[in-house]
């Protein structure tokens, strides 16, 4: 009988677990790792940012800081503000990331987050406009991965949502006579978040098996990945399947169902955390 070790033949090692419908760390195929989130006023909040959140999915740790600034809207969309997501994978999160400008994975993740914001209409850009053609809010959402153990996209979307829920924007009015803007830092309003998208990632093994919430090791061994983003009404916002092995329609439907269940779990968690920090 062959004894295969985790380092010598990782794929065989994994297959033996998958045959029993479980994974080396003890999880079921459809089970998520322990998710914890710290928002704003709790520990590890970033007081220099307007909104911040720290999300841990197992070992994967992602921190999101949102800074709001003022700018003139673009000429062709005078009534829209800006949301600029930026995912950074610094060299400290995993050995394979080099220091320097963002690599492929970081760029792809940033674009994914931008698409999620746009497709789910989480924040409507018209809401960010203060005065048509003159002044609008810019929300810089910086998502930094502190520890990369797989499933970056889920954690990033979650961290972004949590941080945005925590953002308080000061009231800005434009003085009619002078045309200058006046900012009232004392009076702050929370951001209007219309939809709450949640991402669920799956890894495809051997073209057939789907496992949820892959760790870094599983992502390396997988033959493909799928990320499904749903909102609170059970509607599909986006399906991200960058190549990899093909999926049948039925399997995709399973993924979507699992994603909808996951959305409810995440929403409950966020609501619980927000309720625990709002002053009574």
């Amino acid at each position, binding site marked *: 009988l062959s004894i295969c070790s985790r380092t010598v033949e990782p794929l065989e090692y994994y297959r033996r677990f998958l045959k029993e419908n479980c994974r080396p760390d003890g999880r079921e195929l459809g089970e998520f790792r322990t998710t914890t989130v710290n928002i704003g006023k709790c520990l590890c909040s970033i007081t220099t940012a307007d909104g911040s959140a720290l999300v841990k999915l197992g070992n994967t740790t992602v921190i999101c800081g*949102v800074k709001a600034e003022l700018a003139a809207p673009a000429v062709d969309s005078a009534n829209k503000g800006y949301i600029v997501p930026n995912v950074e994978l610094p060299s*400290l999160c995993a050995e394979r990331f080099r220091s320097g400008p963002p690599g492929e994975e970081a760029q792809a993740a940033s674009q994914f987050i931008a698409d999620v914001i746009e497709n789910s209409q989480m924040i409507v850009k018209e809401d960010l406009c203060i005065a048509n053609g003159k002044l609008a809010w810019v929300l810089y959402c910086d998502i930094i991965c502190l520890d990369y153990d797989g499933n970056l996209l889920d954690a990033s979307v979650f961290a972004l949502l949590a941080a945005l829920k925590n953002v308080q924007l000061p009231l800005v009015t434009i003085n009619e006579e002078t045309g200058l803007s006046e900012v009232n830092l004392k009076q702050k309003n929370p951001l209007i978040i219309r939809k709450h998208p949640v991402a669920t990632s799956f890894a495809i093994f051997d073209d057939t098996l789907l496992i949820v919430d892959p760790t870094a090791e599983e992502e390396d061994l997988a033959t493909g990945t799928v990320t499904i983003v749903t909102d609170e009404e059970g509607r599909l916002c986006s399906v991200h399947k960058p190549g990899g092995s093909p999926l049948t329609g039925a399997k995709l439907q399973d993924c979507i169902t699992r994603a909808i269940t996951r959305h409810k779990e995440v929403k409950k968690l966020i609501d619980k955390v927000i309720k625990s920090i709002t002053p009574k």
Partner: protein
Amino acid sequence: MPLDHRRLCGPEESQPPALWAGTAAEDDEDEEGTGAAPRDPCALRPLFARAGLLSQAQGSAYVELGSGTKVLCAAWGPREAAEPGPGRLLCEFRRAPFAGRGARGRPGAVAEREAEREAAAALREALEPAVRLGRYPRARLAVSALLLQDGGSALAAAVSAAALALADAGVEMYDLAVGCALCRPPAPAASWMLQPAEPEERRAAARLTLALLPALNQVSAVLGGGRGGPPEDWAQALRLGLDGCHRQYPVLRQSLLRASQRRDAAAAA
């Protein structure tokens, strides 16, 4: 500003709302500065240090100062280097874009990169005497620091965190390098203060950052400048800084001890 093709771009220019808050905010700040009792210049802020918290790096440390400075650092043990010769220590220092209190730092901007490179060079200067590089010929040791929030004394906190991370990674060291920052406010007869907070650092006339190897009582780096007064003042500032480093040393050692105990417990379980 040249277009950064690797990042999503927002508007060309944007200003933080605090700029437009006008005189109201400035009055508040001045009131805070003068109304509050002048702080004890030798008072050290509470320090929190924890080692061994990242799963992907060989060694890691998180240091948080009472003023709000948060630094996370990861270290990797010896890896093969292409060039022959003694071991090399490669340091990297990054600021998160949301770390500063005012405008958001632009990650790709030249000014940011220059500042990061300077800080990385300072970090290397402070850590090299502490590491036994002679034991790692033809190898490179990598240290990467990330500043999550800048509340003053950022470089000093980064030095402490980096030394902790290297020790946590199992790299052989002579001693932990402990960092301490000082600053001198612009008032004419003001004295040097330990571990300034961010507003104090911004208004300071002179700044100093020290790195000390406490058990050997050797200074590994002194960085700073400004209008500090006669040389005796600077000597006194150095002594104050050294004292501050000695006082922080037990906390850092405790955190290392706890991290190794945790690791042993996890391995045994």
